[in-house]
C-alpha cells in the first residue's frame, strides 16, 4: 500500500517537473526573442522610424522610416481579419448549427479546413500569384488582402467550430423552444461565445500581420503608403526580411527595430483583446 502511494507521488512529481520545464522553456524562449530584439533594436529605434517613409537609399543606411510598412501591415492584417471573420463565422455556423455536425458535408468540410489550416502560406501565395497573372492583376494591397484572407479563414472557422462545441445543448434548446429560427438562435449563441470570438480574431490577426510568404508574391513592396487597393504595399515582415538581408550593420539594426515595432503592435492588440475579453467575461452568463 505504502509502495503504491510512493509510486503515485513519484509520478505526480515527475509530471510536475516536466510541466515546469516545458513552461520555463517557452517563457525562456519568449524572453530570449524579446531580449535580442530589444538589445539589437532599441539603439536603432527612433521617432523617424515610425513616422517617416523610406527616403532614397534607406536600405543602404540612409535616413527615413518604415511608416509605409507599418501602415501596409495594419491595412492588410485588419482587412484580411475582417473578411475572414465575415466569411468564416457564417461557415462555422452553417456547419454546426444549420446542418447536422456529424453529416458527411459537415465532416468533409471540417476535414478540408484542417488541411487548409496546415498548408504553408507560400502555397497560398503561389496560387494567388498564378491567378493574379492569369487575370492580369499586378501585385497589390488587394491581392495581399485576398491571399491572407484565404489563409486566415481556416483559423477562424476551426476556432469558432471549437467555440460552438462548448455551447451547452440546453441553451441551444432554449432559443429553439422560444420559436427562434436557426438564424435568430445563432445570433444568441454567438453572443454567448463572444469572448472566444475575440480570441479567434486575435489569432487571425496575428497570423495575418506576421505572414511573409503569402504577401511576398501578391502584395509586392513599395516605399509609399498605399492610397488605393490596387497599389503595391510594404509589410513589416517583408521590411524586416529585406533589411536583415543587407550586409550593412546600420540596416540590420533597423531590422531589429522594425521587429520591435511589429512585436509592440501585436502586444497592443493582445492587451486590447484581453481587456475586451475580461470585460465580457464579467458580463458572461
Amino acid at each position, binding site marked *: 500500500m505504502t509502495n503504491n502511494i510512493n509510486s503515485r507521488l513519484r509520478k505526480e512529481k515527475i509530471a510536475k517537473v516536466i510541466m515546469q520545464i516545458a513552461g520555463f522553456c517557452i517563457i525562456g524562449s519568449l524572453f530570449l526573442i524579446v531580449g535580442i530584439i530589444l538589445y539589437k533594436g532599441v539603439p536603432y529605434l527612433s521617432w523617424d522610424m515610425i513616422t517617416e517613409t523610406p527616403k532614397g537609399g534607406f536600405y543602404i543606411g540612409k535616413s527615413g522610416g518604415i511608416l509605409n510598412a507599418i501602415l501596409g501591415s495594419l491595412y492588410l492584417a485588419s482587412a484580411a481579419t475582417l473578411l475572414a471573420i465575415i466569411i468564416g463565422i457564417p461557415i462555422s455556423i452553417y456547419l454546426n448549427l444549420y446542418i*447536422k455536425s456529424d453529416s458527411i458535408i459537415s465532416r468533409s468540410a471540417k476535414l478540408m479546413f484542417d488541411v487548409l489550416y496546415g498548408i504553408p502560406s507560400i502555397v497560398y501565395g503561389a496560387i494567388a500569384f498564378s491567378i493574379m497573372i492569369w487575370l492580369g492583376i499586378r501585385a497589390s494591397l488587394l491581392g495581399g488582402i485576398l491571399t491572407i484572407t484565404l489563409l486566415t479563414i481556416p483559423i477562424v472557422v476551426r476556432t469558432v467550430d471549437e467555440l460552438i462545441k462548448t455551447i451547452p445543448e440546453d441553451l441551444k434548446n432554449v*432559443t*429553439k*423552444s*422560444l420559436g427562434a429560427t436557426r438564424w435568430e438562435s445563432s445570433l*444568441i449563441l454567438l*453572443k454567448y461565445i463572444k469572448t472566444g470570438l475575440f480570441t479567434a480574431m486575435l489569432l487571425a490577426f496575428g497570423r495575418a500581420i506576421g505572414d511573409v510568404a503569402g504577401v511576398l508574391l501578391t502584395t509586392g513592396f513599395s516605399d509609399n503608403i498605399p492610397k488605393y487597393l490596387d497599389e503595391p504595399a510594404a509589410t513589416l515582415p517583408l521590411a524586416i526580411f529585406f533589411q536583415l538581408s543587407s550586409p550593412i550593420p546600420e540596416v540590420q539594426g533597423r531590422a531589429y527595430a522594425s521587429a520591435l515595432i511589429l512585436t509592440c503592435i501585436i502586444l497592443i492588440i493582445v492587451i486590447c483583446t484581453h481587456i475586451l475579453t475580461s470585460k465580457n467575461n464579467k*458580463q*458572461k*452568463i
Partner: protein
Amino acid sequence: MYSYPNIEKQQTENITSPLSTPHLQIKNLNVYIDEKHILKNINLEIPNNSITSIIGPSGCGKTTLLKTLNRLLDDSKNIQITGSVLVNGEDIYAKNAEVTHIRKKMGLLSQRPFPLPMSIFDNIAYGPRIHGEHNKKILNQIVENQLKNVGLWEEVKDRLHHYASQLSIGQQQRLCLARGLAVNPEIILGDESTSALDPISTQTIENLLVDLKKDYTIILVTHILRQARRVSDYIAFIYNGEILEFGKTEEVLLHPRNEITQQYVKGFIS
C-alpha cells in the same frame, strides 16, 4: 417549512378527462438513437389543463420522450423517429409541419436555468420580439406581467436592465419560466426543472406550476417521486422505453397495476 401535501387530498375530480379532446396526443411513437430502440410504441393522451408527470428510472427514456414533443431531437445524431405527436390534432411530425411554430406552442423549462446572455428585461422580451412585437409599451407590459406571473417582479423591478446571470439560481429558473410564458405557449414542458434548485426555490417553482395549470397543459419529467406526488394530477411511468402505466396520480402511486411500477413506487428500482 417545506410541506408535503397529502396525495389523498389532491383535487383531481375536476380535471378534464384524458378522453376529452386532449391537447397533446402521442401515437405509436418510436425513437431509435444509433439504431438502439429508445422509445417503444408510445401511445399517450395528455389531459388538458393539468400536470402530467413522466416518471421512471434513470435512462428509461423520459427526457427523450419530452424532447420529441417539441422536436428538439431533430438535430441529434443518428436519430430515427416514427409515429406521430398531435398538438390540437395537428401532427408535428408531418412533412409540412413548421417546426419553429410548433416549438413556440411549447415552453421548455430545462434542468438548469439557462438565461440568455442579456439583461433580465431582454430575456423576457426576446420571445415576443422575434415573433414581431416591437412596441416598447407592450413589451414593458409583457415583461411586467410575466415577472409578476412567476413572482419575480418585486425582486427585480429595480434592476431589469442588469444581466440575468446576476440572479440567484432559483430566480433564474423563474425568469426562464417567465421567458417561456412570454411567447404564449399552450403547453409547458419541464425537464427535471427543479433538480438544480434548493428546496425553497423548488417549492416556489412547484407552486407556480400548480397555479399555471389552469391556463396551460403541463408535462413534467421528474425522477423525484415525492415531487410527482406533490404536483401531478396524472403520472405516466416509463420503464425501458415503454409506458407501463398511466393514470391519475393516486391510482398510479397507491394502487399500481403493473408489478414493475409497484417496485419503482416502493423504491426497489431507481
